């Protein structure tokens, strides 16, 4: 288990995989953009504005998924006392944060032609805004605090408290009367979205996941090189 997390070995894998992930991401993104902008049909009610879904929904899914992962890894670092879990969490945060912003901004752009407003204090939107605040606090904590023990505790607490918001985001459309519709794509129950729209949505989700993986690898490598830099000082 400990050998698995050996930084030297991890670095060899992460540094080499970066360029392959980049090329696959570019290919998948091109397919996704073609599908979502030109090939997928327009909606019978929302017309072409439905195309915003192909950037809005994957961004929201990924930002929520990344924060859940950060919270899990933070708990893991407490339980297993593994510093690498925190390094992974720290490297995941930037892409999660940006996807959260993309979800809010594209949602706002979609809201104008659909609901007639750029913003509403709807339960789903508000809980996504709260998630953004938690991301911001998490990233700022890593920047502000230098002491290792302190930053470990503070970032873990932020991630674990922030994780309470994740099920609120998911079930906000069921618990409260909101402008958002109930989820159309379900893993455990029936999916109500037509395959002609589901396909580009899934392609874009894969493309965005690959982008967050790419950013994660680059950030993680940066953090490992920082550690190696300190190692050179100690020689």
């Amino acid at each position, binding site marked *: 288990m400990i050998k698995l997390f050996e*930084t*030297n*070995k991890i*670095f*060899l894998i992460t*540094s*080499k995989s*970066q*360029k392959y992930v*980049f090329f696959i991401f570019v290919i998948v993104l091109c397919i996704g*953009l073609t599908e979502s*902008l*030109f090939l997928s049909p*327009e909606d019978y009610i929302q*017309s*072409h*504005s439905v*195309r*915003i879904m192909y*950037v*809005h929904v994957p*961004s929201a899914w990924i930002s929520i998924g990344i924060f859940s992962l950060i919270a899990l890894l933070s708990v893991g670092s407490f339980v297993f006392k593994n510093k690498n879990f925190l390094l992974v969490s720290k490297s995941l945060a*930037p*892409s999660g944060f*940006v996807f959260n*912003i*993309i979800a809010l*901004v*594209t949602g706002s*752009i*979609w809201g*104008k*032609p659909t609901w007639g407003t750029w913003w509403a204090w709807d339960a789903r939107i508000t809980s996504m805004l709260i998630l953004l605040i938690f991301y911001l606090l998490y990233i700022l904590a890593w920047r502000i605090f230098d002491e290792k023990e302190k930053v470990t505790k503070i970032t873990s607490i932020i991630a674990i408290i922030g994780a309470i918001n994740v099920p609120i985001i998911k079930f906000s459309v069921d618990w409260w009367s909101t402008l958002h519709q109930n989820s159309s794509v379900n893993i455990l129950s029936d999916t109500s979205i037509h395959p002609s729209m589901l396909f580009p949505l899934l392609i874009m989700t894969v493309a965005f996941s690959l*982008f967050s993986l*790419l*950013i994660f690898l*680059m*950030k993680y*490598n*940066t953090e*490992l*090189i*920082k550690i*190696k*830099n300190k*190692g*050179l*000082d100690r*020689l």
Partner: protein
Amino acid sequence: MIEEIVLMKGYGLYVWSAFSFTLVSFAVLYTLIKTNLVREQNKFSSKYLLLNKEKAELAIKQSANKEILANRISSVI
């Protein structure tokens, strides 16, 4: 045909701005992260060049250190 793609029955401004914002955000995040990575790689190699022969030999024995120096030279993406 092109006009239809651009205007999208009056929704073009919304659709194109949402996609543009997404792609610009990707480019900004990628550039920031890449700049930091290259900066750390450069810092590492300049520190490595300042080491004396014995320490440099000791450092290069680690596969990760070798990889960082190799990456700095061949860093294209």
